[in-house]
């Protein structure tokens, strides 16, 4: 039952991020870091994804989009918030149109702070999320047994 850990596919969404964290996340896919070593693929399709990587604090316009992506992902799924904006809203926390952190909209499992978050810490956060993915799968199994 350890296959979830060996092939985590992620979907990446920019929820009003300045693009700094996005660039750092995409840097993880380049030859220098090459996260495909761990079987990680950037899918772009919520129905194929296991990990929702989200950068930027969610604003009023893309709140619906974030919810939509989250709801379309099949269980088990985890959410990784990349960058300080996604974690708490950062310097934009008080803005009139921002929700102030992704966790105000959808449940977040791993927070990766930084402005912008370094590729090393992003990889670290995603690896941490794999453990949570396993836990969620076990909970799913228990539910099925009890139901």
């Amino acid at each position: 039952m350890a296959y979830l850990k060996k092939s985590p596919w992620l979907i990446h969404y920019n929820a009003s991020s300045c693009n700094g964290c996005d660039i750092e996340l995409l840097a993880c896919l380049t030859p220098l870091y090459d996260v495909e070593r761990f079987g990680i693929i950037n899918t772009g399709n919520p129905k194929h994804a296991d990990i929702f990587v989200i950068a930027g604090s969610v604003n009023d316009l893309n709140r619906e989009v974030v919810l939509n992506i989250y709801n379309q992902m099949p269980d088990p799924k985890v959410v990784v918030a990349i960058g300080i904006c996604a974690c708490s809203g950062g310097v934009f926390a008080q803005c009139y149109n921002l929700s102030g952190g992704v966790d105000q909209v959808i449940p977040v499992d791993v927070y990766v702070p930084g402005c912008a978050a370094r590729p090393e810490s992003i990889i670290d956060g995603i690896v941490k999320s794999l453990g949570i993915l396993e836990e969620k799968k076990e909970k799913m199994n228990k539910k099925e047994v009890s139901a």
Partner: protein
Amino acid sequence: MISVITAVIYLILAPLVGGLIAGIDRKLTARMQGRVGPPLLQPFYDVAKLCEKEDVTVTESQNFYILAYIVFMAVTGALFFAGGDLLLVIFAFTLAHVFIVLGAYAAYSPYSYIGAERELIILMAYEPMIILTAVGMYLVTGSFYVSDIAVSEMPVIMYLPGVFVGFLTILTIKLRKSPFDISTSHHGHQELVKGLTTEFSGSTLAKIEVAHWYETVVLLGIVYLFFGFNPLLALVVIAITYVLEIFVDNTFSRMKWQWTMKEGWGVALTFGFINLVILYYFPLGV
């Protein structure tokens, strides 16, 4: 003439061989891009993971179509490796693809719609050449049966060089390699989100993946038929062919669907058809 044993061996071994080929493919691709790449068994991990995921099917009928797709793809290979009629193999092969197109249409999403339409274009593009391949083999060996062609003493490739070049081109189309990966891409998850397979997830997506492994083995089996007179040479050529396909995949960017159409019919007309005309007017001593 029909051998059930080889068909059963194919049904059991083809997913293993096809998955390994996919793993080597990903590793080689990564190396060509200067990366380390995933483990060799990564395709198996992916399929195993997909089977662990939740089922979020919206339209129930799409799962039935995909089941039909994998069944007919397995039947195609079983017929082929049992030594059956090559024309029947091609018919089952086409039928399998009709089912995946129906599945994508059933899903009711703009991305899978465009993916399905493009898959139909791909079907049209490769079909003439694959039939010319079967006809060419008949002209050389005097039989449509795979069991006869495979053990034929005739050096098929010497008489059908044009057909072989044409077949290699449609092999690129069939293996979903750039520049022809217009309906859904093989490696990168980017074309039209994921084109044909956008709406499939979990174990249904795993079935599509396994069916593709079955398909790869059949297609490489057709390459074998060109070199049936020397099995060792045939295996070497299959290896070279596949590495060449990976090289092409990494060298070219994706083209428009018009280009796929022109290329598919272009090679069928020039290389395939002219080869057959020459063969027809200068008959062999068979």
